[in-house]
């Protein structure tokens, strides 16, 4: 069990004592042990259960379930769709990520107003349901490898636009995504920063969201993850499901192609 392993690690660390030379890495090691202790009992499970129920429940003005939603592999297919998004959808003529695609289904199948949900702040009303659905759908692709399609011209264009967005410096601090995520083995405070310009490996970066954030006890989808990155970058507000967020997600996902998704994860 993960917990047991963490405890064993802690016991080892105690036995070995803390040599002076290891002071810096001891702090980092302690943090890693702390994170390992949290793995066993990820509250994202609560959101998974909620998302699964929402998928099957008849809701909205049309009193319909989402069971006929086409997330890229045909109506009703929910296994394995998460690791192939964002992708191009012919019916909307857009490249869409999981969350924007869920809005499309909630509008067409259930009669909700997609624009209204997109304008709702995170953590409120239907946004909570979108997050729960995305969490459950991510869990239905857990441990599968990312394989975002790049065959449609628009998918390629979104990758290229995403790359430009990633390196776009601006705002009062001159930050771009690359300011923090452009090098190997760096941290902000004690938080490890994946290098997102290349494949960051199984369960790292793009392959770890949605995730439960222990700092605020909230479940975050990729949209909220990107949104909060932009907030800390001192950029203006990216619209929910806007092309900028989807292009950026395409860039991150394609860069991590082949890595296994561990979402829903648990994070600081």
């Amino acid at each position, binding site marked *: 069990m993960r917990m047991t392993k963490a405890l064993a690690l802690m016991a080892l660390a105690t036995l070995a004592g803390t040599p002076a030379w290891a002071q810096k890495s001891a702090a980092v090691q302690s943090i890693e042990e702390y994170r390992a202790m949290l793995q066993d009992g990820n509250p994202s499970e609560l959101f998974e259960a909620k998302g*699964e129920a929402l998928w099957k429940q008849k809701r909205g003005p049309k009193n319909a379930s989402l069971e006929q939603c086409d997330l890229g592999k045909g109506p009703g297919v929910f296994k394995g769709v998460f690791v192939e998004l964002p992708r191009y959808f012919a019916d909307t003529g857009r490249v869409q990520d999981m969350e924007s695609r869920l809005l499309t289904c909630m509008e067409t199948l259930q009669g909700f107003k997609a624009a209204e949900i997109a304008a709702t702040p995170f953590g409120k009303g239907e946004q909570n349901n979108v997050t729960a659905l995305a969490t459950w759908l991510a869990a239905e692709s857990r441990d599968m490898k990312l394989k975002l399609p790049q065959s449609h011209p628009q998918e390629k264009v979104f990758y290229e636009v995403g790359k430009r967005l990633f390196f776009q410096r601006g705002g009062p601090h001159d930050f771009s995504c690359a300011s923090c995520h452009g090098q190997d083995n760096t941290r902000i405070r004690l938080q490890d920063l994946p290098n997102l310009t290349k494949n960051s490996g199984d369960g790292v970066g793009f392959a770890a969201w949605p995730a439960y954030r222990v700092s605020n006890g909230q479940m975050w989808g990729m949209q909220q993850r990107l949104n909060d990155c932009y907030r800390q970058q001192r950029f203006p507000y990216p619209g929910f499901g806007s092309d900028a967020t989807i292009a950026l997600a395409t860039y991150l996902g394609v860069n991590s192609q082949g890595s296994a998704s561990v979402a829903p994860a648990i994070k600081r």
Partner: protein
Amino acid sequence: MHLSRRQALKQTAVVAGLLASTGLFPQYAFAFNKDAFEAKSIADTLKALGASGLSASPDVMLTAPDIAENGAVVPLAVSTTLTGVKRLLVLVEKNPSALIASFNTSDSVESAFSIRAKMGQSSDVYAVAVMNDGKALFAKKEVKVTLGGCGG
């Protein structure tokens, strides 16, 4: 009729809720010990619980991280190999109120519980076994709380 898992769970909940309110669990008609949970210090908490004579014991165990990346969630495990234990407490000395949780021990469960606590700042964390005779035995450990992120 097809029931989703959630709906099924809800119905179970209603039934169990009814059972609870009909007093089928009489031994759990305990009153929440407000004084113990509102006491500031560990000493006052123990007083409110009718315990005294706090002393260290190797038979009380506490597992806690050296450093918590975030004070909002600090995983803590308390246990004891002692017999004659009435309850096991988890306390954080520097929290506004020290008592986090109190577990009533029984023959049906092991005297070992894991829980997660909020910590406002770095502090000593205590596991306390309150014995049937009112004696309190403890183990403690310092947990450092750091700021993990940008601080924005």
